[in-house]
Structure formats: C-alpha cells, structure tokens
C-alpha cells in the first residue's frame, strides 16, 4: 500500500495563477481532508469529504475549491492564487471501522509546499 500520496511535492505560482493539488489514497477510506500548515498555526482544515461526490467546508475554505469524483481521490483547487496561500498543504484520509474495530486515525500524505509570489 502506498497510503496517501500527494502531487506535486513543490510548486511556485505567481499571484493570480491557478493550480490543482491531487491527493490519492489506496486504503478505501471514506473520509478525506485537506489542511494547510503555517508556522506557529498548527494545521487548519480547509475542506473535507465524507464520501465520493460529497464535500464540505472546514475552518478556512475561502479561496479554495475541492472535488471528490472518485473515492480514492480528493482534489484541491486554487482558482486565483494569492500570497496568503503560501503554505504547506497536507491531505489526510480516515475510516470509521478497521478490521471490525472503531477507529478515527487519520493517515497523512507527505505534503505539498506551495509558494505564491
């Protein structure tokens, strides 16, 4: 199992450009999340999904859109990048029951470091 993978690992954008971050998981998890991590701020939830075709806003959703067309993929889009979106972005996935045991463990990807100039 690859677990949770993120593409790309690094990206530099100019203000106003758009891009899509891809998250993929091969654990058949129902739930997927996008977070951003800024120095001294911990992780903040951007958007999340509780199943294929469903998405919901998290703590800091403005400026981002998401889609979950397939269960294994969760895409994060920036339509018009701003310097305030310079951050490290983490994707995570989780399931409620694993091998018959209730679990809420989140599995994280390695992150995407995004710089917006």
């Amino acid at each position, binding site marked *: 199992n690859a677990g949770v993978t993120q593409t790309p690992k690094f990206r530099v954008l100019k203000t106003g450009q758009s891009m899509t971050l891809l998250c993929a998981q091969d654990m058949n998890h129902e739930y997927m999340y996008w977070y951003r991590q800024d120095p001294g701020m911990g*992780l*903040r*939830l951007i958007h*999340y999904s509780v199943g294929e075709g469903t998405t919901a806003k998290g*703590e800091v959703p403005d400026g981002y859109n998401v889609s979950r067309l397939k269960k294994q993929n969760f895409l994060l889009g920036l339509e018009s990048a701003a310097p305030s979106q310079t951050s490290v972005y983490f994707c995570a996935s989780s399931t409620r029951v694993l091998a018959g045991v209730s679990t*809420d463990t*989140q599995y994280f990807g390695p992150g995407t470091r995004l710089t917006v100039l």
Partner: protein
Amino acid sequence: SQQGEEDPQALSIQEGENATMNCSYKTSINNLQWYRQNSGRGLVHLILIRSNEREKHSGRLRVTLDTSKKSSSLLITASRAADTASYFCATAGTSGTYKYIFGTGTRLKVLA
C-alpha cells in the same frame, strides 16, 4: 480558531529524561488524538483517547484526559534522540467525529 493549544511551545531535554506536553481545548469532544510530525514530513498518529477514558498507554507513551478541565497530557518516557519532532493534539467534536481540529504543537528536542 484553534481548538487545541499545546503547552509548552518548545521543550528541550536530555536523552533518557521524560517529556511531558499538554493540550487544552475549548468544546466537548468525542475523542482526542496525539500526532507526531518529523521535520518536513506528514503527521503520524500516535494514540487516541476517547472522552470516556482517563488514561491510555502505548509503549513509552502515556496519555491522560481530563474532560472537566478540557485538557490532555502526553508523556514520553525515557526519551530518545529519535523522538525529536513536533507533537500535535487533535480533537474530534461530538457532532461529527470525522472533523478534527489541531492544536498549535509542541516542538520537542531530545539531546543525545
């Protein structure tokens, strides 16, 4: 706003010593989890404690939860240089446990 606040923000100890870090949160929770993040990496789950539990152990880790004080502590015993990392608490609210809020983290440095 952040749900969890870790204390201290940074901690430096000698190898073999115990490390204690604390997490406070604001609203009722279903469970609280602790994660470790090595520099430049994603977070790794360490341990989960549910709201009806008071203490939990996993190897050298001991977690306590005091729901009346809305606080939790993580104790790492006999620390090793490899424990050097940032540690985060994450809380899942009672309305939907699939939505987590992370604290600001404690940066632990274990000196060999």
